[in-house]
């Protein structure tokens, strides 16, 4: 059979034959943009979607949020895409649980004139117009390693505690982390294993325990997921490893405040999810207004966020993540 990659490229090629973008087209009002997160009731997505809501309000369009109750209910997410297609919304901003599973439904939606923006977690390239990336995947992956390296003095065994084994964004970041670790500066740092906590507090907890038992000389853990880092921090803070094993990764300031203050965690990072949502909203409206079509080099205005340029394969980068530590954490609430 053929390989997955070549098909994805075919799709991208087909996609490139759209109408031309007009950066000066007027911004349409009265649109309906639906946000479809991986999971409703997930605090991270709630903040992101709230950002989208505010942006849409300022743009004079309306917002709605639908989504499955569980982050692994892929068929539920597909059903929601279908429902939104039925309801003829103007744009869908979706964080895909699965890069492939949503494709058929999203293409169906695009065929019906709906603009599709992915945010936070992408689908295959051909199944959406643009992807709003929470910071360049490369920057995110490398910066977490850099962060931990600094805390460890570039020495010792480290491990990664990820979410699901299938999470696209996690895997991309981990790829860049491994690449970063190849640099000579990290020759004394060794990645011993990658564990998966499935974004479940209890499982992440047990995986952390296991990591520490199996690798008694473990010096640091990177957990590029908000659930994972929180569970790991809670375990460390109640164990003898507190303050001895360094932990960093992606977390929200509200979750991590206690652990930063009690010395379990020195520093971690994250983008501002509200901005991510807002940018997705702007991108969606820009698509509907014809200001962009998803091709490399197109630019659009995103209100107070500034001007953004589309990169390769229709990817829009939010910018560098913020590093939180004891000094600045109290300035952030989310």
């Amino acid at each position, binding site marked *: *059979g053929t390989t997955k990659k070549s098909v994805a490229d075919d799709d991208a090629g087909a996609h490139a034959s759209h109408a031309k973008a007009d950066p000066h087209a007027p911004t349409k009002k009265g649109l309906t943009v639906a946000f479809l997160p991986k999971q409703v009731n997930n605090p991270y997505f709630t903040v992101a979607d709230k950002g989208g809501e505010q942006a849409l309000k300022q743009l004079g369009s309306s917002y709605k949020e639908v989504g499955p*109750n569980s982050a692994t209910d892929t068929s539920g997410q597909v059903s929601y895409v279908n429902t939104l297609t*039925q309801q003829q919304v103007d744009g869908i901003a979706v964080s895909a649980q*699965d890069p*492939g*599973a949503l494709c*058929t439904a999203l293409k169906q939606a695009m065929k019906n004139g709906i603009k599709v923006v992915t945010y936070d977690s992408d689908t295959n390239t051909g199944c959406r117009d643009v992807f709003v990336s929470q910071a360049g995947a490369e920057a995110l992956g490398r910066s977490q390693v850099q962060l931990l390296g600094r805390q460890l003095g570039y020495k010792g065994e480290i491990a990664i505690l990820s979410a699901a*084994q299938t999470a696209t964004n996690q895997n991309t970041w981990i790829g860049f982390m491994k690449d970063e670790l190849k640099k000579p500066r990290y020759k004394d740092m060794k990645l011993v294993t990658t564990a998966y906590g499935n974004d479940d507090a209890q499982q992440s907890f047990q995986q952390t325990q296991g990591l520490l038992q199996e690798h008694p000389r473990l010096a640091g853990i990177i957990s590029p997921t908000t659930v994972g880092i929180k569970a790991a921090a809670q375990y460390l803070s109640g164990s003898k490893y507190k303050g001895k094993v360094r932990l960093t990764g992606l977390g929200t300031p509200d979750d991590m405040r206690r652990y930063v203050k009690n010395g379990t965690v020195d520093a971690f990072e994250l983008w501002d999810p509200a901005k991510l949502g807002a940018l997705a909203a702007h991108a969606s409206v820009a698509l509907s207004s014809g200001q962009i079509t998803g091709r490399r080099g197109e630019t659009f205005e995103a209100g107070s966020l500034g001007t953004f340029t589309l990169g390769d394969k229709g990817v829009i980068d939010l910018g560098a993540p913020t590093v939180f530590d004891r000094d600045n954490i109290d300035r952030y609430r989310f």
Partner: protein
Amino acid sequence: MTDSALVRAVRWDTVVGALLLVLLLLSFAFVDGFGNALNLSFLIGSTLPVALIALPMTLLVVSGEIDLSVASTAGLSGAVMGALWNAGMAIETIIPLCLLLGVVCGLVNGLLVTRLGLPSLAVTIGTMAAYRGIAQIVLGSDAVTDFPGRYLDFAAGRIGGSFVPYALPPFLVLLAVAVLVLHATPFGRSLFAIGANEEAARFAGIRVKRHKLWLFTATGLLASATGIFWALHYASARYDNATGLELSVVAAVLLGGISFDGGRGTLGGAVAGVFLLGALQNVMSLLNVSAQSQIVVTGILLVASVLGPRLARRIAAARTARAVRAATALPHAS
């Protein structure tokens, strides 16, 4: 005589059928976007996996057993299908192999239950984890999406512009076969006896173990067929495909009036239950009912499904008792 007609009329499977009908009629009339062909095909397509597994599951439950590993079997055959496809095997060879794998999974369950006499609930909770785990080992974090278009179209497409997915007619054939098997063959008769009183069935010369083994095998086969359908329908083969499907199947089958004590229920009821839940979810999404509220509604429906007939029966019984009392009171009034 009238009371039994009444009691027969309030048999739960007929009630579920009627409810489904009412729901469909009301939705056609009052819910925007429900009645068009696209939505109906979505609805049927997303309900088919549950319906497909519900067929053998109903037979299994009637005979007093249960198989909770179905979703994992589906996931496993999807994963193996993906892995083999990646390895370059022809899809025409892969599909029979995957079906064979399903048969093996079912056989393992069946042998553990019949040869060792273990409770099927316990066994299949175990194999549920085992099969899913094997799927994870086989496919890891890959998501295979590039299956041949012909097959994808079959699983996701519909006949012409109508609402009928290509996969519906084959399902209807299977349904007819299952109905005949359960309700009109000696085999089906035996299942009811086994479920209601296994010992009496043995004394009547029914080969209890062999029957059960057949059922587990058939369940495995159809579960893997579902897994293949799922992977093609969503154009994504991942190890965690169809996670949680077993609970949907169990809920739908229960809603259809199949007693988990064994020995009672009809396939019509089970299938009506499946489509009632499917249609209800579709309608509620179209009406912008949140995922959380949908869950509550599902729960209430389940509780009502058992309380309802009971109340009806009690009322009917009270009424006939009163009638009889009135009849007997007169001649003995002296």
